[in-house]
């Protein structure tokens, strides 16, 4: 009924030469929760605004529920939105702010009242219903914006960093709450965030954006474990993926910092043909374990910094001149300056082309 289909969107803002979105295509299935994730200025808001009808693309098309809406004004699209800037009406009380969309739809008065109370309860806004936005904190104002969007029962729900201004605890609360609400509503959701934990926990699928383009589209686990290129690996995860300059020798070994371990077969085969190739190795901090120094398959390294995080300990380690992060259980006792051995989980190793930075797969 309300799937979103975006095809080849190009958008350049007037007075700018850079493409704000560059050939973006994206299909969001009905009821799907799609998260747009990317660094600041990569075009997330721009994409959302075009779906909402607040900006029109230079090229490409958008259809919602099979209906081409590319150049339709926002009020004819049956969607609702949480603005990055909240855009909570300053001249209306919280109550009438939340009710705005319903009043425009000429919903019955009692129904409006019921829904406003429901949303206010959910977002812990009940004590503030008769206040003006100027009398609220930033986080409360943001929650008003969310409440105003969820009462609409719209086919499509667009949210631009709706939890960005909440404290860590509230954010954790509302993340779960939001997931539940959206599942109940069954709206097709496009959700923008910087926060990759939020992205991972909420989404059915994640679209990672970079400079106006979608760098990778996939389930959160896929994006996390098998980044399509170095950018995605480096953007997602905390700490981000480690990248090491390595080399596949003609004999089929992986050489990092002058030390060798086994290389995967598809790379070894290619290297045997070409006589060895340089390769970029990616591995996440939690996929590296400490091992007996000099033991079979381990690489020698030196601990530089030890950061206890509570649930684990993060080590900064020097491996043959390259610095990487290693996450070990908090029970492991190491101190800076220790010489250690590292063992990489071979299944978690990712390889990237030196030139294109794209992921290499079998």
């Amino acid at each position: 009924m309300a799937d979103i289909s975006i095809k080849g969107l190009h958008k350049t803002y007037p007075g700018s030469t850079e493409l704000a979105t560059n050939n973006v295509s994206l299909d969001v299935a009905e009821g799907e929760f799609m998260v747009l994730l990317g660094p600041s200025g990569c075009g997330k808001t721009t994409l959302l605004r075009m779906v909402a009808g607040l900006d029109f693309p230079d090229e490409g098309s958008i259809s919602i529920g099979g209906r081409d809406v590319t150049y339709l004004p926002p009020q004819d699209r049956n969607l609702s939105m949480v603005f990055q800037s909240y855009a909570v009406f300053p001249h209306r009380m919280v109550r009438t702010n939340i009710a705005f969309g319903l009043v425009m739809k000429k919903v019955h008065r009692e129904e409006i009242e019921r829904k406003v109370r429901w949303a206010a309860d959910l977002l812990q806004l009940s004590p503030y219903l008769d206040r003006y936005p100027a009398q609220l904190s930033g986080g409360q104002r943001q929650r008003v914006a969310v409440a105003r969007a969820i009462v609409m029962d719209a086919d499509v729900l667009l949210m631009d960093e709706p939890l960005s201004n909440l404290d860590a605890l509230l954010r954790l609360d509302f993340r779960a709450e939001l997931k539940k609400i959206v599942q109940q509503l069954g709206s097709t959701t496009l959700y923008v965030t910087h926060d990759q934990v939020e992205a991972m926990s909420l989404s059915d699928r994640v679209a990672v954006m970079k400079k106006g383009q979608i760098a990778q589209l996939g389930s959160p686990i896929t994006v996390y474990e098998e980044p399509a290129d170095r950018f995605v690996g480096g953007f997602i995860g905390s700490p981000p993926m480690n990248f090491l300059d390595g080399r596949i020798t003609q004999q089929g070994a992986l050489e990092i910092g002058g030390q060798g371990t086994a290389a995967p077969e598809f790379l070894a085969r290619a290297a045997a043909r070409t006589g060895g190739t340089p390769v970029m190795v990616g591995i996440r901090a939690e996929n590296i374990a400490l091992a007996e120094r000099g033991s079979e398959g381990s690489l020698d390294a030196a601990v530089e910094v030890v950061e206890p995080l509570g649930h684990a300990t993060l080590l900064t380690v020097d491996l043959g001149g390259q610095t990487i992060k290693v996450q070990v259980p908090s029970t492991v006792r190491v101190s800076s300056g220790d010489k250690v051995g590292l063992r990489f989980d071979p299944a978690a190793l990712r390889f990237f082309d030196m030139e294109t930075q794209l992921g290499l797969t079998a």
Partner: protein
Amino acid sequence: MAAPDAPAAARPQLPPARPKGRPPRRKGNSAALLLIAPSIVFMTLLFGWPMVSGILQAFGGPQGLTTANFTRMAQDPYFWSSVGNTLLLIVVMIPIQFVLALAMALLIRAKPRGSSAYFYIWAIPLAVSDLAAGLVWLTVFTDRGYLNSLLASFGLDPVSWLAYDNYPSMFGAVLIAEVWRATSLVFVIVVAGLQSIPKDYEEAAGVFGANFWSRLWHVTLPLLRPSLQTALILRTILAFQTFAVALALTGQNFPLVVGETYRWYTGLQDPNVASALALVVMAVSMVTAVGYLKLLRDQSEAPR
């Protein structure tokens, strides 16, 4: 004013700041006095003194203070018709001017081609003196003016637009000239007000299903209230003082209150009655301004 759940008493009452090492008070006061002295002198000379002498003159007569000037003013046959004309002009003109100014300002906000040129063109009448404007429109409406030439070229009979016995067309001519001359003031204020409203609010309203008229009514106009209030007060007070346009177009045929002041002063050589009239205009203007402020008070006291 304050919303019910934020009474003034709930606000933190800061104790008056009283630094321990008290600065020499006398010096601070004299510095403050020195700083406001120029404006006090300025206000006294150019505002206070003329006003006091005007009031004295209005109540002045050969045997000391009297209200005879006001009686004479009210008994003059032109007085009540000038009041009627002035009120009619205000009641008809101001809504027209606000609708026009708002429409032009919204058009400019939509940024069509050459919108900045429109702005300057529409602001031009701001720089035209009212007498000049009256004379310009006289060339249009006079018996052998442009309008009658135009009618003649269509084979129609000329009309005496400004004739004494043709009240509707006389009123219409004054109205058109005043609308042309004075709408730009409202326009400039509304444009400035619109520019200070972020687009987000209208965009949000659009997303939540509001069409153009709902957006205008529920979002733009309320947010524009401070600007509209300013424009309304200014425009109404200035409208009470409309004078030169009507004088240039109709002479004495369409009397207005300030025109009567002028007539008493120069024609009838009676400065006392002229002052009484001026005092009435001032009182009415002040009452109107206060009325507007009360009527259009912003309940949300919300900063944008």
